[in-house]
């Protein structure tokens, strides 16, 4: 019988970091955190879970991206409040901090425009530092598909970030 309390305590940092990095907001991250573990429970009912960290990373990423999509679909620019309501950054200087926040917001928005699997692969790689092999196992795809997803995600994200930057004269 799975001890879920133990699983939560053991994997809390991983899930929290994944959620918080994407959502940059404690309330949203907390929702995502809970939903991730509840979904993991439901999945464990249907099949044996061999790798909890991989499953939790995948679920947390997917949920966080879904939440980002809902956030931006409400067509309110939240950069002034939610995205900046954060723990102080390690960057020196307020100007650089603001720039960093701006980039984060743009990247979050851009992620919502990617197909789900591309967004997931990107987050697992660049936010969770997973290897291609780990991502392939987590998403149940081949290593070559992982490479393809990442390549396309990066291309699209660069395009979106540049467009956003040129529109706002960054």
């Amino acid at each position, binding site marked *: 019988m799975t001890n*879920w*309390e133990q699983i*939560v305590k053991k994997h*809390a*940092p991983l*899930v*929290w*970091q994944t959620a*918080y*990095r994407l959502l*940059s907001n*404690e309330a949203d*991250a*907390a929702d995502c*955190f*809970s*939903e991730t*573990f*509840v*979904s993991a*429970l*439901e999945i464990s009912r*249907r099949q044996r879970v061999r790798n909890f960290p991989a499953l939790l990373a995948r679920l947390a990423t*997917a949920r966080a991206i*879904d939440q980002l*999509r809902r956030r*931006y*679909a409400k*067509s309110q620019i939240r950069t002034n409040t939610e995205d900046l309501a*954060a*723990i102080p*950054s*390690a960057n020196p200087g307020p100007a650089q901090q603001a720039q*960093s*926040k701006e*980039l*984060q917001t*743009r*990247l979050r928005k851009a992620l*919502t*425009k990617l*197909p*789900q*699997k591309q967004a997931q692969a990107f987050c697992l790689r*660049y*936010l969770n530092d997973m290897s291609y092999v780990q991502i392939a196992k987590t998403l149940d795809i081949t*290593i*070559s*598909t992982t*490479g*393809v997803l990442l*390549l*396309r995600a*990066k291309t699209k*994200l*660069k395009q979106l*970030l*540049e467009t956003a*930057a040129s529109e706002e004269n*960054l």
Partner: protein
Amino acid sequence: MKNKKDILAEAINAFKIDSATTAPPQETIDTTIEKLAKAKDKSYTSQQRLTFTERIVAMKRFSKLAAAAVIIIAVTVSINLLDKSIPTASAAQVLQDAIDAVSDIWSVHMKTRMRTLPRDNFSNIGLSYDFVPVEMWKRTNETGLVQWRVEKPGRVLVMDGQTTIMFIRPNYGVLKERPLPLGCFDSWSGRLLNVRELLDNELQTAKNNPDREVSLWHKEIEGQDKIILEVEVAANVPEGDYLRNSFITHSDHLKVYQFDTETKLLEGLQVYVHTDDKDVLIFEITDIEYNTEIDDNVFALDLPENMNWHGKPKKLSNNEKYQKMTPKEAVKTFFQACADENWNEALKFWSSSQIDDRMKKYLGGLTIISIGEPFQSQGYAQNGLGWFVPYEIRLRPVERNARLSNENSAGRFVITGWYDDKMQPQEELKWANEPEILADNDTYAKMSPEEVVNAYHDALLRLDWDEMRKFVPGSDVNKMEQGCKAAAKHNVDIQKNLPTVEVMKSFWSEEHSSYFVTYREFGAKKFNLAIRKDNPAKRFVVDGGL
């Protein structure tokens, strides 16, 4: 504006730096444990929020139609969430709109480019080939007569409403005395001229294959809004199949359609083949014109007088002898006939009325080294009537000439052109930059023209690309290197296909104001011969691989 490479890396760094909290608040952990305790007592309900992807995965028992409906709804919802300025759309709707938009077109003119060979099969692709232009026209006149033309530099297909001709330059042709549909003779690209059918097939496939990955998004191009539809297609042959990635349908690929948002018309299509480390653009429509006048001459062909027409092998008086041959026996008999220059015998394995002089010169007097065990590909010839037979032959020696010059700042001889035995130019080698002054330049500067030609061919046999660059332009070496890599992926033993050379003499040509080296080339070939017996005579004929 930040440069392309920096902005994404900076954004990723910004994410990573700003995550100083590594653990959730205790309250969050406690709430979660409570929720889990409650959830453990409940069975799965539809209130549990899964991502769209997980819903589809979970619904394995649902019918395909139901799953397809979910996909379409999922795409619809995600489109709405992404941009409220566009009306509700779906991949199916975009395709249907595009089908409606082309319902009254009577002519199409497409300019495309494809990574293929100018004279080869229309559908054959190569990931390392250069792009070749493929231009296509289709017209339906007032009486409903359909005519079309598909053309690339070395091969043309024309259907004038009554007959269909495939013309392979300079003088080979296949004639069918009836109008064949687009897509005949493997013209994958030709099928694109049936725009309505192309889109309708895509629509039906989307409905019947819910597992197929589709994405839909908007893009602004030169101030105009476009709809981009991306469709993933799996290869129809397994990994490791001999013909994998040799044809678009035999590769895992991505189709990227572009539609104009206002007119709904199809404006572009790109096809990318997936490989282990990257996507390769293999085909692209660069221009489409609808309903423009097309000159009648487009659907006529100017053929040379010495046409060599393809014919289906006829039944021979001793046909049974050839019918009974195994693939290996047929190939051995064919090559032996070439070795003996017994062209009547060789013709029994040939799919046209004659073997032209160019082929006779190439194959005549060959020596058979070995014939291997035949194998088949799922992507070649139906009903098991096609085979690939490995072979290794040595071709009759051919005399050639290399043109050299030492008029460069390095003061050493380099190769500037290739000529045949009659001193007719075969290829100019363009040195974009002066030959490099090498670290050990003196050694190379002292080499005679004969020594240079020998050294170049020795390096070629070793596939020593760096050494080769000392004697021929780097761009030529790069092309060869890419070609060798591509061939290696098809299990072609490159080194077995490279010629050995015997240098004979060097001389100064007043006419060309250049040095020349005459050498004899002993060509070798180790490849797979394609043969098939799906013909009325039911005997094997050569279909490719020479």
